[in-house]
């Protein structure tokens, strides 16, 4: 208790002077270490005394953990500590059996990840088959996808995007790190090419909803 009230005093003092960067690094370390979920820079700064610069402290911390059994990783705009993947063989005990996803769910997930933001009609156009409600529900429930902005096309359809939980699960810093993304884009396979003429294929009746813009929004910034 005494330590805590001292700390509060320190916190107030630090309105005027931030703790040294080594101390800030320790603080980031403690916060990230304690949390199973990624923590955003914003939250780090909010929890650390005023005047701290979590972003800078993280640069140091990340370097410190390079090559260690535990790494500091970036997940979207948040940071987390994760065990090194090469030590997974030690972790059988910790392994959690993940629910097996159906082929349809895996494909739908991949399409959302690579094409986001993407509408249901676009997913159906790519798969050539209608997307069952259960598939989308399952992915939403797992918090691997969420609703994105509506598309500015007739009918203003909702779009799907992947979440930071998705990135965390697959060890990705951002959706730009998806495997093979560059090659796919270079090959034009992430384009939403409208079919020539009016002939529609399979279930793509509502293809007039689809526009060329928006497809690669996520990857542009």
């Amino acid at each position, binding site marked *: 208790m005494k330590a805590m009230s001292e700390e509060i005093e320190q916190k107030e003092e630090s309105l005027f002077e931030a703790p040294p960067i080594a101390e800030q690094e320790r603080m980031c370390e403690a916060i990230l270490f304690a949390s199973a979920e990624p923590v955003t820079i914003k939250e780090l700064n909010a929890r650390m005394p005023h005047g701290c610069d979590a972003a800078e402290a993280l640069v140091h911390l990340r370097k410190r953990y390079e090559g260690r059994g535990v790494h500091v990783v970036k997940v979207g705009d948040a940071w987390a500590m994760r065990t090194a*993947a090469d030590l997974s063989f030690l972790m059988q005990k910790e392994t959690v059996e993940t629910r097996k996803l159906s082929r349809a769910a895996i494909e739908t997930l991949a399409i959302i990840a*690579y094409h986001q933001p993407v509408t249901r009609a676009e997913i159906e156009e790519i*798969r050539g088959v209608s997307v069952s409600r259960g598939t989308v529900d399952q992915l939403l429930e797992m918090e691997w996808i969420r609703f994105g902005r509506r598309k500015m096309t007739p009918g203003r359809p909702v779009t799907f995007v992947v979440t930071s939980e998705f990135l965390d699960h697959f*060890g*990705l810093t951002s959706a730009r790190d998806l*495997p093979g993304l560059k090659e796919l884009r270079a*090959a034009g396979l992430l384009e939403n090419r409208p079919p*020539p*003429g009016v002939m529609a294929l399979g279930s793509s009746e509502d293809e007039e909803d689809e526009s060329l813009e928006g497809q690669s929004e996520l990857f542009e910034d």
Partner: protein
Amino acid sequence: MAEDLFEEDRERSVAERLAAEALIVDVDGFEGPLDLLLTLSRTQKVDLRKISILQLARQYLEFVERAKTLRIELAADYLVMAAWLAFLKSRLLLPPDPSEEGPSGEELAAHLAFQLERLQAMRDAAAKLMAQDRLGRNFFARGIPESVERVRRVTFTATLLDLMQGYARLRTRDEFRPFVMDRESVFTMEEALARLRGLIGFSGTWTDIMSYLPTGWEEDPVKRRSATAATFAASLELAKEGKVEIRQSETFAPIQLRRKDEGHV
């Protein structure tokens, strides 16, 4: 494209035909016509970009025909695709008609090839994605997360407008009253009934009901009217209950009442 048609036909081995046949039994296993087309395309054993759409169309139509002879019900979208591929096939085989509107057979074929390639690419990407190092399988989060204690601090706020409205509300409260009926000069029937019930026991003889008005209600006309009406209504109620008898000799004559005894008829 038309020239290599027969060549392709010759190239198809018995094994491939058998493979195509085997597919028929497994029609439920396909995720739509595009998936079926992609599977059929594998028999061509070429890069998807070099695939012969014409040959693929023929394979597909053959598949549909077989399904028909085996009396397998195909979902509507498979049949729509068959119709479309039949159309595409005719477009590809016939020399282009310059007067015809719309996209050429080659354009349509190219788009279908693109769709197949894109679907295949997405499948490969999905496989790569699932093979990534994954949380809870290859790398792990903190096993004993420390709970972050939430300290909730509530701050209260108000605006000058709130303050002024609050004050205005207080200061103008007395200026008017909400919808409350002024009841000072109202004698209710319930009150009259209660009063009569108490007095009726002593009324063996005919008495003018005006003598039953409560004291203090006889002078003021407003009060008198209310009390009279209430007392009259109450006496009717008592008559209905068989407690009293009422009589009036003529119109506007005094109304009299007396206790109704068991003996009276």
